[in-house]
């Protein structure tokens, strides 16, 4: 099934894209998707323990099971203000 990945800040730069369409197996979690991306973009590995995730514009645990068409954002540590 197809999901959309959104990347921000340094993750966006490392991947060279702010939005990526991605095929994932049924039942895949956000974390499995992250692991898959980290294999493709080596710079992601350092973020394994510090990313946050949002699914369909709401913060969501990495254990969230994805649905077809989900919009999945991976967020590096934040620095607003």
């Amino acid at each position, binding site marked *: 099934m197809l999901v959309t990945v959104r990347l921000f800040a340094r993750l966006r730069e490392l991947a060279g894209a702010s939005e990526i369409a991605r095929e994932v197996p049924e039942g895949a979690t956000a974390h499995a998707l992250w692991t898959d991306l980290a294999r493709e973009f080596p710079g992601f590995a350092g973020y394994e323990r510090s990313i946050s995730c949002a699914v369909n514009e709401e913060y969501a645990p990495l254990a969230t099971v994805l649905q077809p068409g989900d919009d999945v954002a991976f967020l590096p540590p934040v620095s*607003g203000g």
Partner: protein
Amino acid sequence: MTDPAGPAFLVTAARLDTAAVAAAVAHPGCGAVATFVGLVRDSNLGRRVLWLEYEAYAPLAERTFEGIAEEAAARWASARLAIHHRTGRLEIGEASVAIAAASPHRAEAFAACRYAIERVKQIAPIWKHEHVEGGDVWIEGATADPADAAARNLAFERACS
């Protein structure tokens, strides 16, 4: 007719209007409006800052601001909050964030305002890209987790100190 008060929670590339942020929370029962304005500073960690670029996940950031206001209202029942954050390139001295807290009395207004800026820094999906002499660096602070009770309590303690 458009709402003269304007939006309470906003991510915008336009210059922040601090009067509009205060107007978004003022109401006849409030005797106090506390405001906080964060500005771009010319140095950070010993580096000379030339300008900053802010990136945001805008829809989630605006929802997060609304959630912060709900948290504050749960602590200070009479407090109303507005939070505006800017994105894009900001020069030294420009406002990056503006917060207003309205309440019948000043103590709750000050506390809610301080709580809001602490929570923005902890959980708003916004990133600062610092352009310094000789290069640039993404600033990475807290792992954003709105459900983290320890972070929430830390913000509350700072608000009440």
